Each structure stands twice: as structure tokens, then as C-alpha cells.
């Protein structure tokens, strides 16, 4: 299948004068194909949000790409995310974004319908009446009553607001939607229905959704494939089912083990220690100070990301490379 | 928790204000405040030290020849009333600053305590005094000040003037302090203090007031500005105490004797210029102070 987005050897840093640079992303490789939901998991500070910033092409100092290549492939055309002009042309039309907090992303003093209209008007050439009619039917499609268009943000519940934002992000049928913790701050019932909505729209339009969340439970529910990040690198990536059935990386194992399960009275184990300081990351494998299976080797050599099973990649010395002929130096994760 | 740990935020906030101002010389210089404080220091020297060396009392009329242009003997010339403009200006700057500082210090003290009190006590005290404060802020003070001063007809002593200015100005800091106290109240250490059985007054003095120090410095300089501005306004239209040399009365006499149209620029330009520079200086200090506190105020 042709790739929609490729990330190759991406390293990015936050550089502030007088402070040592923070290596937010180190040698990240993976790609997205059309029509899938890919989850990105990891603790806060693992590079999830930085990754989203790079992908959306909204790079502002102090964030800087040090190395690597990130590109969109739209209708045979290749667009590097660093190309600001091209990115602003395709943004929202081809690649859109669902932000973390829908509480504050809508203009508090303007009716929803009007804000929605501005979004459409900025990207599509439609008549006023046509725009209005399409917005109305789309809003109903995402499960909202028509009156929300005449409402102000403060009159809607958190779930309704998030549905509005999802509608705005998917109205133009983009090929790629970046979702940044889209259900934070919603209660569990609403959270489920919002996730279901994203899933439905994704299937219907054949979009690709990159879903960033610290919550492994969410990835279990909606992601086709999950990328586990640790300290700015990919630790493991696999089809979600395989990942949850048999996680390989000790970090992934801990993440999944810490999930609460129904009818389970046992106390969940949580991961001890805290993520490393990315201004001065530990040598070797970045997880080794917290790893229960740490070996001498781990403290010196950074494990490459290798495909140990079909479509299942892991960066850990516990899993030796099956075939030395494979170019391990520049691994390319492909699904 | 013992009182020592409770006092920690208190002390550190006072310390950090000093530290922040001190750090001006270092990396995180706040150029506004540095400039403001330096020029203000110059004004203080001109206003309070220089007049001690005046050869003749500049307030007394007809001690010198009239209408002399600037010369070596009279650096800024003389007025139509036979005063040395240079020494008169120095004394006026001193007196204006004195009025401003007097009003500002008392106003800030009253404002901080009233605001802290009603913010902390809350309830009916808050409602009643809150309404009074809002009303006093909304009322245009100048016509009432003029009414008051006119009844005295120039006989109002400077002290009376200062008292009136204080009476009309304390609600501004009180309102801001009240808002700050309300947000401070939410913070935990106040609850801790209350549970540990300290009285309301004690809590206000020990826990809240010191938190307001950074803001108080900004407010103080700002009130100096407002007070000098009001006194100058009253003086320029001749309802202040006209025998007391201030920047305002100096401008008043210059205008009365048509200095502008008679070409005696050395009489009218120095006080006007000094007033403008003084206001800018005070504003730089006040906004500089409010920047050092790192967005703590509302």
C-alpha cells in the first residue's frame, strides 16, 4: 500500500539560549498508510506532543528538526512538513488536527455555526447557502442537534464541544487527522462515544488518524496499530492486538500491566522511576535505569528498532536480530 | 505545621522582590525599572538635597531682579516675581514629590489594609465596603476636589490637601488588594494558618500583607504619580495652596504672568518639562515593578 506519511530518522530538539538542548525526538522511524488508526502511546515527556508539532508543520522556535525527513504523500505529490507554504496549502483540507482541550479552542463570543462557516470558507469555495446546508447535515451526522450551530461554546457540554471540534476537523474529508489526547477531561461514558465517533468517521471517509494518548486503554479500544514511545524514541510498534497479546519491550509490558482490568482485585503494578532528563539522556538504551531486565550491554549500546515478527518492531537487546543481513543501522518501520 | 514553615512563603516573597530588583544588574535586567529608578534618584537628589544649598529662599518674592534670562549667576533666569527659576524648580520638585509620597504611602497602607480586611473577612463587610469602594472609584474626583479647595479659597493648608487626596484615592489599591486576597485565600497555606488557630488579624498581617509587597511597590509609585498629577491639576487652575512652591503652582504663576506670551520661556518650560519627565519616570518605575512580580496581580 502506498504510504501517506513517512517519518525517517527524525530527531528534533528544543534549543534555548543558555540551556543545553533537550532532545525531544531521537531517530524516529515509522510511516502511516491510508485508512488506519495509529495510536502513539507513552508517558508525558516521551515526545508524543513534539511529534504532533512536527507532523502538523507548525514548527516554531525553540523546536527545531535536527535530522531526518518527514513528508506527506498526497496524490503522488511529496510535501515535506518543513515546507511552510505547501503545508499551509494542505493544512485542514488534507491534514487536520483535533486538539487536546476543546474547552478553550472555540472562540467564546461567537456562535458555533459562524465559526464553522469561517473554517469552511477559508478552504472551500461554496455558496453561503450551500455551506450552511452542508454544515447542518454534517453536524447531525456527528450526533449533534442542529441548535448547537446557534449556540455559544459555553452553552455546550464538554462532549458536545469535542464533537463540534471533530466535525470541524473532518468536514473537509482530510486524508490525515492528528488527534492529540482527544478525550482528555471527558468522563468515561462520553469518552467512549467520542472515540466511537472518531472510529466511525475514519472508516466512513477512509481517513488515517494518528491518535496520541497516554492511555493504553484508548489504544486498545480504537487503534489498529500502536506505537509505543519512550524518551523520544520508538520502543515498540505492532498491530494493536498483537501488542496487547504479547508485548515485547519491558516498557510496553509495564504499560499494559498497569492497566486496570474488570474484576481484578489485585493491585496494579506501576512503573517505578521516572522518565530520563532529555537534556542529558542516559547512555545506551534510554530505558535501562528503569528496566527490570537490564543487562550490561544495555548501558552502552542503544538498541536499534528491528522487525522481530511480521509488522512487529521492537528496540530492545532482549530480542536479537533474526537476520544479520537486514540493514539494522537505518531500520525502517513499515506496516 | 509550626509557624516557622508557615512564614516561609512570606519571607521568600519579600526576599524575592529584593532579589528580582537586585538582579536588574545581572542577566535578567529590566531596563524600564533601571531607567525609572535612576532618573527617580536624580529627582530625589534635586528635590530634597539641592534646595539646602539655595542662596536665597526661592519661595519669597522680589529677592532678585525680575525677568532675567538664564546666566551664570541665575542658571535658569528669574521670574517676574523676582525668584530664581533654578532654585524654585528644585524646591518645587521636592515639594511635589513630598506631597506625592505622603499621599502614596498613607493611601497604600490604608488601601492594603482595607482591601486585605474586606477580602479576608468577606460577608456583609465585603458587600458594604465593596459598594462604597466601587462608588468612590466611579465618582469624578476633580470637581469635588475643586469644590472643596474653592471653599477654602487658597487657604487650604498642604496637609488638608494631602488628607483630601488620600480620602479620594485609597479605594483604588483597596479594590485591587481585595481581588488579590480573594485569590490568595484559595491557596492552601492560609487554610493551614486558620486551622492552626491564628486570629484573623494575625493571619492578615503575617500571611497576606507580605504577599502583596511586590504589588505594593508598583502601586506606591503609581499613586505618587496620581497624587502629583491631581495636585498639579488643582494648582494649575489656582485652587491649591498657591504660596507653597510645587510644580503645579510654579506653572500657575508662570501662566498668570503670561510668561508664555512675554517670551519668558525659561520660566514656563522648565517646570512643564520637569513635570513631563517626572511622570514618565514614575510610570517606568511603576510598570517596571509590576513586571518584576511575574504576573502575580490580577
Amino acid at each position, binding site marked *: 500500500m502506498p504510504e501517506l506519511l513517512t517519518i525517517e530518522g527524525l530527531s528534533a530538539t528544543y534549543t534555548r539560549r543558555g540551556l543545553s538542548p533537550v532532545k525531544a525526538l531521537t531517530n524516529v522511524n515509522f510511516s502511516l498508510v491510508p485508512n488506519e488508526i495509529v495510536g502513539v502511546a507513552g508517558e508525558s515527556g516521551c515526545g508524543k506532543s513534539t511529534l504532533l508539532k512536527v507532523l502538523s508543520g507548525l514548527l516554531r522556535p525553540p523546536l527545531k528538526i535536527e535530522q531526518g525527513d518527514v513528508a506527506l504523500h498526497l496524490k503522488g505529490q511529496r510535501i515535506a512538513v518543513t515546507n511552510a507554504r505547501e503545508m499551509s496549502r494542505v493544512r485542514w483540507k488534507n491534514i487536520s488536527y483535533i486538539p487536546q482541550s476543546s474547552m478553550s479552542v472555540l472562540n467564546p463570543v461567537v456562535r458555533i455555526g459562524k465559526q464553522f462557516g469561517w473554517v469552511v470558507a477559508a478552504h472551500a469555495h461554496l455558496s453561503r447557502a450551500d455551506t450552511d446546508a452542508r454544515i447542518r447535515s454534517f453536524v447531525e451526522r456527528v450526533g449533534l442537534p442542529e441548535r448547537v450551530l446557534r449556540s455559544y461554546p459555553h452553552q455546550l457540554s464538554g462532549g458536545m464541544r469535542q464533537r463540534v471540534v471533530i466535525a470541524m476537523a473532518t468536514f473537509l474529508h482530510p486524508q490525515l487527522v492528528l488527534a492529540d489526547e482527544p478525550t482528555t477531561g471527558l468522563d468515561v461514558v462520553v469518552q467512549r462515544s467520542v472515540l466511537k465517533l472518531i472510529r466511525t468517521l475514519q472508516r466512513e471517509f477512509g481517513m488515517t488518524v494518528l491518535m496520541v494518548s497516554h492511555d493504553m486503554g484508548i489504544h486498545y479500544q480504537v487503534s489498529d496499530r500502536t506505537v509505543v514511545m519512550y524518551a523520544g524514541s520508538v520502543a515498540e510498534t505492532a498491530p494493536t492486538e498483537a501488542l496487547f497479546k504479547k508485548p515485547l519491550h519491558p516498557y510496553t509490558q509495564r504499560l499494559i500491566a498497569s492497566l486496570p482490568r474488570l474484576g481484578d482485585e489485585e493491585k496494579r503494578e506501576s512503573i517505578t522511576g521516572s522518565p530520563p532528563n532529555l537534556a542529558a539522556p542516559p547512555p545506551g538504551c534510554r530505558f535501562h535505569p528503569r528496566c527490570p531486565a537490564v543487562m550490561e550491554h544495555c548501558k552502552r549500546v542503544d538498541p536499534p528498532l528491528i522487525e522481530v515478527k511480521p509488522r512487529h518492531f521492537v528496540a530492545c537487546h532482549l530480542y536479537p536480530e533474526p537476520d544479520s543481513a537486514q540493514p539494522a543501522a537505518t531500520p525502517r518501520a513499515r506496516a | 505545621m509550626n509557624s516557622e514553615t508557615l512564614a516561609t512563603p512570606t519571607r521568600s516573597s519579600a526576599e524575592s522582590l529584593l532579589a528580582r530588583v537586585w538582579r536588574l544588574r545581572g542577566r535578567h535586567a529590566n531596563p524600564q525599572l533601571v531607567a525609572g529608578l535612576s532618573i527617580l534618584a536624580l529627582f530625589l537628589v534635586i528635590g530634597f538635597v539641592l534646595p539646602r544649598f539655595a542662596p536665597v529662599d526661592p519661595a519669597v518674592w522680589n529677592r532678585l531682579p525680575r525677568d532675567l534670562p538664564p546666566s551664570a549667576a541665575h542658571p535658569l533666569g528669574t521670574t517676574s516675581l523676582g525668584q530664581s527659576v533654578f532654585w524654585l524648580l528644585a524646591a518645587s520638585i521636592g515639594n511635589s514629590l513630598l506631597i506625592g509620597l505622603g499621599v502614596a504611602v498613607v493611601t497604600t497602607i490604608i488601601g492594603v489594609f482595607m482591601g486585605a480586611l474586606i477580602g479576608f473577612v468577606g460577608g456583609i463587610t465585603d458587600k458594604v465596603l465593596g459598594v462604597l469602594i466601587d462608588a468612590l472609584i466611579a465618582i469624578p474626583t476633580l*470637581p469635588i476636589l475643586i469644590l472643596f479647595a474653592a471653599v477654602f479659597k487658597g487657604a487650604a493648608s498642604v496637609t488638608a490637601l494631602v488628607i483630601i487626596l488620600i480620602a479620594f484615592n485609597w479605594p483604588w489599591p483597596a479594590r485591587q488588594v481585595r481581588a488579590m486576597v480573594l485569590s490568595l485565600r484559595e491557596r492552601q497555606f492560609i487554610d493551614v494558618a486558620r486551622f492552626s488557630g491564628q486570629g484573623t488579624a494575625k493571619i492578615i498581617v503575617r500571611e497576606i500583607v507580605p504577599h502583596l509587597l511586590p504589588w505594593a511597590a508598583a502601586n506606591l509609585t503609581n499613586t505618587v504619580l496620581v497624587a502629583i498629577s491631581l495636585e498639579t491639576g488643582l494648582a494649575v487652575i489656582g485652587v491649591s495652596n498657591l504660596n507653597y512652591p510645587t510644580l503645579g503652582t510654579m506653572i500657575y504663576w508662570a501662566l498668570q504672568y503670561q510668561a508664555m506670551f512675554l517670551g519668558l520661556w525659561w520660566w514656563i518650560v522648565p517646570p512643564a518639562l520637569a513635570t513631563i519627565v517626572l511622570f514618565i519616570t514614575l510610570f517606568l518605575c511603576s510598570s517596571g515593578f509590576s513586571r518584576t512580580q511575574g504576573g502575580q496581580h490580577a
Partner: protein
Amino acid sequence: MVLRYISTRLLSYLLIIFIGVTIVFFVPRFTPVSAAEAIISQAYSQGSFLDPDAAEAMRENLLESFGLQGTLLEQYGGFWRRALTGDFGPSFSVFPTPVSQLILEALPWTVGLLVVSSLIAWVLGNLMGLFAGYFERGAGWRVMEAIAVAIYPVPYYILGLALILMVSYLFPTFPIGIGGVAIGLEPGFSLEFLLSALQNALLPALSIVLVSYGWWFLSMKALAEGLKREDYVVFAETMGLRRRTILGRFVLRNAMLPQVTQLAMSLGSVFSGALLTEVLFAYPGLGTLLYTAAANGDYNLLVGIAALSVVAVATAGLLLDLFYPLLDPRVRYA
């Protein structure tokens, strides 16, 4: 909610007027009797030019005004009665013209000067502040900020004085208008009258505009700098909305809320400052009237202007407060 908002505002409006007028009533009564007597004797000496009947009427009125007749409560009640009917008695300096008539003649000049110059300053300051705050980097905006910082803290009348000095030394031929219009012009809607009024209002208006402009510029700049980091502005930029929409409907629109509140709050000091500016330019508004009243010890006129000032400023504030819910839907529908 709207009803509650309006009733709260109305209540505080009435309270402001009540407290303000009460202060106007009591302030002169705190003064030592000697001061009151000084004014009365001054008024008497002016009264000696009048016929005996008029002088007697004036004396009566003075005694009443100064609270030398009846109990304090009776005087207070009488004061309110007169204040509510707008009857502040005859002017002493222009006896027997009623104070209300003098005020009504002066009021349009002040309102015209204030409304026009405040509006210009508010609109210009907000627009320029918007751009300066949104496009932070740019030497031009820095220079504008420095100018605003240098002008804003200076009171109108001092700036007015500086303007007079500058204009009269730098452009000696510039016709500085003193007074309302050129001498001898009859009020009316003739072109000549309007042009003359405009010319004479130019410098006082300019000093008010410059100072207020500085304030609105600085506060709007600070607001815009904060607003452009608000989630909804960042999200609007991410969605690729038109820049005009973002500036106008997101940043400016939301900054209007605090700016209107600020405008309502600043009315009192703007009004006070404008009164002094008028005096400096002998502009025939309330300020100059107040000045002549103070100079002549025209007690009735002073009280009338002070009371009217309280009511006028409070009313203007109320109108802005009532306008606010139209701007903020969170007040309208909650």
C-alpha cells in the same frame, strides 16, 4: 441572568449617584465657618451692585446653601429635592442667571470634545495596539510603544501646555484657537461657526487624543499579546482561518470585552482631566465654567457642576455597562 446583571448595574448606578451627591452636599459643610463666611461676604460685596431685592434673595439663597438655616437633615432633604429637579439656584457670579442654564450652555462643548476625542483615541489605540501586539516583532511597533509609554503618563493638561509651547515657538503663525470659536461668531450651524469651533478644539482634543491613545495602545497591545497565545486563537491559526478573521473576530473581538470595561472605569478620570484641559485653552465647556466658578467663589455653580459631573459620569458608565452584554454572550445566556 441578563435581568440580574442589569438590575445589579442599575442598583450600583443609583448608589454611585447617591454617594457622590451626598459627598457633594457634605464636603463644604466640613469646612470651617470662617471659609463659608469669606465666600458669603465676597458674594455680598458683589451683591452691592445689585438692587436691594436681588441682594436679599441672594443672601437668603446663600444662607440656605451653606446650611445656616434649618437642621442638617432638612437641608439634606432640600438639597436632594433641588438636585433632582436640576435646580441649583442662581449663579452668584452671573446673578441672577440660573446655574442650570449656565451648565446647559457649557455641557455640549464638553460632551462634544470628550466624546469625539475619546472615540478617536479608543478606536485608533485599539487598532494600532492590536497590530503591535499581534505582530510583536517589528521595530516600528517598538518605536510606537516607546512613544506611547512617553505620552501616556503625562496628564492631558500638561501635554496641552507642552503643545501650546511647542506650537507657539515652532510655528508662530499657527492660529492657536483660544475659547470656543473666534470672537463675535454667533452659535449656529453655519459652516464658519463649525470650522472655527473645530479649529479651536483642535489642540485640546489633540492633547486628550494623544494621552488616551497611549493608554489604549498599551493596554490593547498587552491584551493582544496574551490573546494570541489563547487556545482558540492558536487553533484558529492551525485551522488556517483567514488572517483578517483571526485578527478581527478572534483577537480584537475578545479584547473588546476588557477594553469596554476599562473605558467605563476610566470615564471619571478622563472627565476630570478634560476639565483641566479646557481651562488651559479657555475652551467654553464645563471645565472653564468650573474654573470661573472657583475663582469667583460661585458656590451654587460649583455645587451644580460637581453634582452634574457625578450624574453624567455615572450615566455614561451605566450605558457602557448595559452595552456590555451585547458583546459578551456569557453574560447574555448563562
